């Protein structure tokens, strides 16, 4: 066993896993905090919705699409000056979070928009007929009804973020991806590569499982 994994430094692995989890947790938090309102705004200003605003929707839509079409690796590099400006560094976990958030937020917002569109129009109408304000409609009807969809969107986003964190390793963010590249790829330590890949796989599986459980739990249909 130890011969097979001769190059594996378990302390390094543990550290890298911790960094990956920090990056994932931090970026997912900010992605949801920023992406949820953006998704709601996209939904509300969309065609035939409550605040149908063609101009605003087009602008938001365009920005989202631009950010989504940009390859993440490019975004990482382009973002460096901006990242330094807000976190003081472009390295490590702190340096990775801004590009991760900017990369994932538009993606998540679109998924939220789609989840909200799935809510039966009749339910919005019934809530309107009760005399609800727009804010009440969003908080008391739209978001709870779309909760399974939003949870599924969060799961997909978290998993996408895992692969983004691996890429962020390239620009010195640390984490499992960084380890895989530095040792597994550049020093031909296949065993390190295998261990990191297995750990990433386990992480993705766990996220998917928890996400699916939550979706089922909140689906009352």
């Amino acid at each position, binding site marked *: 066993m130890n011969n097979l994994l001769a190059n594996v430094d378990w302390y390094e692995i543990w550290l890298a896993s911790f960094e990956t989890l920090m990056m994932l947790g931090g970026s997912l938090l900010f992605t949801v905090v920023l992406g949820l309102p953006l998704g709601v705004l996209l939904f509300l200003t969309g065609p035939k919705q409550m605040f149908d605003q063609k101009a605003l929707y087009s602008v938001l839509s365009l920005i989202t699409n631009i950010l989504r079409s940009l390859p993440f690796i490019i975004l990482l590099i382009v973002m460096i000056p901006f990242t330094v400006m807000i976190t003081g560094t472009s390295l490590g976990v702190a340096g990775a979070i801004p590009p991760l958030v900017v990369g994932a937020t538009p993606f998540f917002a679109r998924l939220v928009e789609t989840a909200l569109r799935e809510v039966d129009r009749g339910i919005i109408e019934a809530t309107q007929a009760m005399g609800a304000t727009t804010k009440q409609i969003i908080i008391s009807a739209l978001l*709870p009804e779309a909760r399974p969809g939003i949870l599924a969107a969060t799961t997909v986003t978290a998993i996408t973020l895992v692969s983004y964190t691996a890429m962020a390793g390239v620009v010195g963010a640390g984490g499992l991806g960084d380890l895989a590249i530095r040792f597994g790829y550049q020093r031909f330590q296949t065993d390190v590569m295998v261990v990191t890949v297995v750990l990433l796989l386990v992480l993705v599986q766990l996220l998917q499982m928890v996400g699916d459980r939550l979706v089922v739990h909140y689906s*009352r249909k």
Partner: protein
Amino acid sequence: MIEFFQVNKAYQLGKKSITALHTTDLQIPTGQIYGLIGHSGAGKSTLMRLINRLEEPSAGRIEVDGLDITQLDASGLRSFRRKVGMIFQHFNLLTSRSVADNVALPLRLAGELSKSEINKKVSDLLARVGLENHAKKYPAQLSGGEKQRVGIARALATDPSILLCDEATSALDPQTTGQVLELLAEINRDLGLTLVLITHEMDVVRRICDQVAVMDGGVIVEQGQVADVFLHPQHPTTKRFVYEAEQVNEDEQVQNLAEVEGRILRLTFQGQATYEPLLARVAYQTAIEFSIISGRIDRIQNAPYGQLTVAFKGEKLEEAMQMLAAAEVHLDVVRYEEGHHE
């Protein structure tokens, strides 16, 4: 009283404009069950949704108990809407909330009652619709009839004075339809609510409505007391709905009549006259012969009525007709006998 003054509604679809409701005047008296019947696309939902301003009128004025609702600002509209309950064909319950939470929602949104007051009210409402044992269930665990009862309880939560029912029974089987209609009639009776009820079945109108408006192509083509409209339909659309409900096949009837001799009359009895042996009495006194070709005895709301198509033969036909008319039977001549001269 709900009043429409020269109300018109057109939808803008790109450059095209579709008039869903042509300029209409309408009065719906307080406490009535007012039926709206018409084919798909006739404009029934449009008219109903103008009452709580889910649709804005393109022109005209709508007053509810003297209040011009077209002039209400956003907050005025919200408090007005609390006085107008609405139930829907597909129930539109929140799937993420339990039955009790669905019924509580309008009260929470209104924010006027404390938590315990809301709980009390919700259990009263659930008891009224017969669902006290289903409070903790989710809508997906209920049958269609039960879902509509939740919808009704929810619509009643803010003590409305008007209840709008858009095809509330169209998704239900006949037996469940009957139960839901009974519940609605009971609510109308006990709470004095004005009900506006959309349907495409004349039978629903016959069972619980006081008045009815028949719509076609965005126009109210006929309107009045249910008994009058039902027993003496004037407009072709109304006739079609009535014959459909009565399962009368007009072509078949005309054919059958060709084989019958004598003068054919349609007699309409209402109220007590329905159960009296009038025909026999008249035949006895005037020595006319009669044969019943078709007929039906039923109820409109709770009042009995009968409608018979009868062929008469005999010398004293005019006298017999006078006797029937004197007994408050409504007579329509379907066909005169051969050789009749007016």
